[in-house]
């Protein structure tokens, strides 16, 4: 079998190629981080009391919110700069604006405790999700874990 394989083996190769690491881009990672931001903003708003326990909880929620807002931004930038290519821009002329505004929302959510801004970020991520999967010709419904 291996001898036969060697005899039959062509000397030239045709690449059914794919830029590595393809197939691993997914707006889901941005969505999970944005959801965490939204959740933390909501929880922060509802914290009452100013004892040490409440202060500690607030501090932890703030830290998580800022960290996740940064992760959301990083994930969006990866999609923007690595996944999306010039032909996509022709298809979606406001692609740059979409990502720029989404990244700005990440910054705003990092700085503020703002449920409304967190919802806006979720909407921006949903928009990116829809564009992303449309470019892949797949219908993947947007969903939230929370």
């Amino acid at each position, binding site marked *: 079998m291996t001898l036969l394989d060697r005899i*039959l*083996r062509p000397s030239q*190769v*045709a*690449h*059914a*190629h794919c830029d590595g690491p*393809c*197939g691993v881009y997914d707006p889901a990672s941005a969505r999970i981080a944005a959801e965490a931001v939204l959740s933390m903003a909501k929880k922060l708003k509802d914290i009452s009391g100013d004892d040490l326990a409440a202060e500690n909880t607030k501090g932890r929620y703030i830290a998580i919110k800022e960290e996740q807002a940064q992760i959301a931004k990083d994930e969006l930038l990866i999609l923007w700069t690595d996944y999306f290519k010039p*032909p996509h821009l022709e298809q979606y002329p406001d692609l740059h604006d979409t990502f720029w505004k989404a990244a700005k929302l990440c910054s705003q959510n990092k700085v503020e405790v703002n449920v409304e801004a967190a919802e806006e970020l979720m909407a921006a991520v949903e928009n990116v999700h829809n564009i992303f999967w449309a470019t892949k010709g797949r219908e993947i419904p947007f969903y939230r874990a929370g």
Partner: protein
Amino acid sequence: MTSKGGRVFLTALLVAGAIRGALTIRRYARYGVVGDSMAPTLLPGDFLVVDLRVASTHPGDIVLAVDPREPGRVIVKRVASLDGDTVTLRGDNPAASTDSRHFGPVPASQVTGRVVLCYWPWPRRRVFRR
């Protein structure tokens, strides 16, 4: 076949066969598939016969083309559509394919062959008809 006519006929047949063989050598080439982007139609390790004489391509054809981003490399993709002198190429496995969605349509002149059959592995043998 001892008559003179028979010998002439046989010789003619041999000459025709030799010419045909010579043409065949130039016309067809064998290629091995590397990569997943044409799955499940073509899998890594599939051996193909490619018709190098492509007068025209049609949507649906599986073709070889010069990689627009790395001219030394040959890629295998399916023709999605034709637009004048350009060809839009797609992988059958879009989730794992870099193709015209990324590098745009390629000039038709860069299409160098059409895949006509897969001959190995034997259970995967298949003729690609138009």
